């Protein structure tokens, strides 16, 4: 190869490596964590700028180039600075942009952030030299190595390859860990993840910060190679090029992200230079950009999972063959739940009005009443999914009224949902594992420590899950995606998942809805056994025969108030109850 061609090939490979790093960062945020970072390019950019101003010496007086810092630090300190700046920026932006619950809302706010930042950087001459940007940034070790131009390009490729390997190792380790599983669960169903102890806002922020740091490092490496950076390099459109890459490659799959980076580089950035020019260069750019839009539509329509879909985490082969333990009841006894004067209104309508009751361990209580009586609302108030206007919810001896749902659930108050809420792109087995507390690998730090740190606990949990699956006769489906199951099977998964969370108080919101009569009997038997094992249970249900077979006592609600309490037999003879509910 001629030196020029060699240099060209090395340059392309450097771009590929840098883009791969960026794609892995975005994949961690969006593909794994579900956070739609529409400000992605901003993070790559701050990395580039900070690396530049940490590498450059202070701007000489009289030179028109102006910028902050100018610390002239030796390599690789500027890159470390880039990572820190990316993380800090993500922390600042995430603290407000991640506050709305809807992901599309968050994404739009981030898009706005990105546009505003570009305006500010362009107009503030003193930060990074405004619209002209920074240039003549020295390459690392340049001048000290005598390699020739193409030789230096290969050397730099080596450097970038090391960084890429480290980032790949790091992101793979996070994704494959119990914490990664928690993130994927949160991506699939944030509300359900929250009810099982995931602080969604905090975990989203963590993944946003890590991805921001990775993006910043990619930007730092890029600027070290090309030696210049200006607002023209980071229009908001660039963000969507990265999104195209990971959507086409396959969300949640690091190899897919690499493939996407390769494709984008080849098809969009290099191929056009070999094509005959059509129209002006402006037209050509527009056509190219429009093609990116078309590509997004094509993939979201025909192959939303991408060329290389997320790898299925088939863990059933690690389950012990025969259940070594007896069917797990609650591993710890239940606790008392006492609710007093609980109230909540919606725009003038009293949905729950001074509701009080006490539930004891080892009892199952039904909560019945006509539609709109406030049953589900009461359940949500207890679980923290809604904030009560007044009243107390005492779990054991702690008043949890007004707590966030994930904090309430950590005390052992676990609820199931009226509409099935499985983590669709996790397997059945993973759904169970994701709910279990006390997994040391279930945190950012813990996941970094690697398999050896969390495998022993995973083995225990696999044994528990195996026993549950055998008990509910779903062992065959352990490795099936939960989203592929029938409605009734998904109910069972949800109940098993709640049990894996080691509840002390189980709140069931219409567990029998959409379940066939045979399966209903199975669920009832399980619930009775759990009750006898000492669990505290509250069940909202319209299927009165099930309530009668499972519950010791029943609370009747109507129009937000408790109308009566007693056994089903007693309630049948209560005229008020019969009038309000049982008849009409």
């Amino acid at each position, binding site marked *: 190869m001629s030196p020029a061609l060699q240099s060209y090939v090395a340059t392309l490979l450097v771009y590929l490596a840098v883009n791969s790093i960026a794609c892995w960062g975005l994949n961690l945020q969006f593909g794994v964590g*579900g956070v*739609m970072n*529409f400000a992605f390019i901003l993070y790559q950019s701050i990395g580039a700028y900070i690396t530049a101003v940490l590498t450059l010496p202070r701007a000489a007086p009289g030179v028109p180039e102006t910028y902050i810092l100018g610390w002239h630090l030796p390599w690789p300190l500027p890159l470390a600075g880039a990572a820190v700046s990316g993380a800090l920026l993500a922390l600042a932006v995430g*603290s*407000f*942009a991640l*506050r*709305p*619950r*809807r*992901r*599309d*809302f968050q*994404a*739009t*706010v981030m*898009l*706005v*952030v990105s*546009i*505003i930042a570009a*305006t*500010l950087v362009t*107009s503030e001459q003193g930060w990074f030299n405004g619209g002209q940007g920074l240039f003549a940034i020295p390459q690392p070790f340049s001048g000290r190595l005598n390699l020739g131009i193409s030789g230096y390009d290969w050397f730099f490729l080596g450097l970038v390859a090391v960084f890429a390997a480290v980032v790949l190792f790091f992101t793979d380790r996070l994704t494959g860990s119990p914490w990664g599983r928690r993130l994927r669960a949160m991506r699939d169903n944030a509300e359900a993840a929250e009810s099982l102890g995931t602080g969604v806002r905090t975990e989203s922020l963590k993944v946003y910060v890590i991805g921001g740091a990775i993006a910043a490092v990619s930007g730092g490496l890029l600027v070290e190679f090309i030696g210049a950076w200006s607002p023209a390099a980071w229009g908001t*459109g660039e963000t*969507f090029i990265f*999104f195209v890459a990971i*959507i086409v490659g396959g969300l949640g799959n690091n190899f897919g992200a690499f493939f996407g980076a390769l494709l984008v580089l080849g098809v969009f950035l290099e191929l056009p230079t070999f094509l005959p020019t059509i*129209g*002006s260069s*402006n*037209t050509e750019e*527009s*056509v190219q*950009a*429009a093609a*990116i*839009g*078309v590509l*997004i*539509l094509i993939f*979201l*329509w025909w192959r*939303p999972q991408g060329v290389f879909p997320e790898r299925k985490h088939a863990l059933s082969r690690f389950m012990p063959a025969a259940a070594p333990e007896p069917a797990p009841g609650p591993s710890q006894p239940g606790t008392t739940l006492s609710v007093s004067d609980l109230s909540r209104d*919606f*725009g003038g309508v009293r*949905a729950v009005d001074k509701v009080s009751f006490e539930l004891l361990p080892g009892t199952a209580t039904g909560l019945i009443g006509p539609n709109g009586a406030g049953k*589900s*609302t009461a359940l*949500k108030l207890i679980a923290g999914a*809604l904030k009560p206007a007044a009243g107390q919810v005492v779990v054991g001896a702690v008043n949890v009224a007004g707590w966030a749902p994930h904090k309430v659930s950590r005390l052992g108050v676990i609820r199931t949902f*009226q*509409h099935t809420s499985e983590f669709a792109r996790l397997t059945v087995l993973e759904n169970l594992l994701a709910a279990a507390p006390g997994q040391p690998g279930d945190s950012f730090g813990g996941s970094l420590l690697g398999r050896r740190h969390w495998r022993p606990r995973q083995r225990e949990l696999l044994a528990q899950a195996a026993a549950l699956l055998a008990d509910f006769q779903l062992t065959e489906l352990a490795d099936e995606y939960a989203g592929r199951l029938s409605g009734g099977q998904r109910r069972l998964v949800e109940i098993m998942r709640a049990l894996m969370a080691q509840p002390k108080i189980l709140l069931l919101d219409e567990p029998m809805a959409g379940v066939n009569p045979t399966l209903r009997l199975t669920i009832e038997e399980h619930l009775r056994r759990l009750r006898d094992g000492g669990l505290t249970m509250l069940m909202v249900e319209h299927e009165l025969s099930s309530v009668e077979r499972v519950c010791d006592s029943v609370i009747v609600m109507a129009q937000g108030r408790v109308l009566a309490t007693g056994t089903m037999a007693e309630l049948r003879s209560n005229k008020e109850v019969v009038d309000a509910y049982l008849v009409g």
Partner: protein
Amino acid sequence: MSQIVLSLGFGLVTASILAMGAVGFTLQFGVTNLFNLAFGESMTVSAFAAYIAHNDLHSNMWLAMAAGGLAGMVLSLMISRLIYLPFLRRGTAQFAMVMVTVAVSIIGKNVLSAMSGSGFYSYQLPPERPVHVLGMVFSPRQLVIIGLAAASLLGLHALFRYSRLGKAMRATSDDAGLARSVGIPTTHLISAAWLLSGLLAGLAGVALAMDLGTFDFNMGGNFLLIIVAAAVFGSVGEPYGAIAGALVIGIASELAAIVNPELKNVVAFGILVLVLLLRPEGLISGRVQMRAEVAA
């Protein structure tokens, strides 16, 4: 002081355009639950449609404005029928739908760019004598814009309040499932919402182009930023909230422009951040949350 009053006038004009845009954006969101980031491109296309009507076909500006509104309606209905609805029927996830609207926005913007080139366009309207109102200075054209916004928003209010269509739309916005179950034909309603939203986008687009004097293919996309800020301010999906947001953000950004014109968008953004920190789901989030809870 007079500077502030003067800016108040500019703010009123901006707020009028913004109100039409934000209400169009939020109305469509309320009925279809879709965060449409291609809304700005509908505005730009309409501005170009009015340009063709006025500069090439030599119609007067009123007709050109109507042409813009019509273009907005047609485009909005076409995009929803040909792209958004098929994706929604497939059960495409919420996050993926935003990507779909982004893709449409990218395609729209770049097709416009390829067709219009990088130059700026202007309606070439004759100069007018400014009008003084309470210390504020308007061109008659700006008064037309304010009047247009007031008329279209009052019309919308009457529609919501008194017509069957408007009531059904509010019901669908509150709870689509329930509305369907009581016999409201939601598909027609959704089309109506897209048409109305397109009309408002079209009018806002032409008004913005008139107010700015010159425009290019980026106009609507750039303006979407403060539309989103206004819509989020008043809780997305709430037309009256969006009007409040438009007033606050429109006037605040013009006041900030006294200090530095570059600050316009930054102030809009600052207000957006503040609202998100204080009330993550927007100003009148209580109602929205109630809906979500009652629906669940």
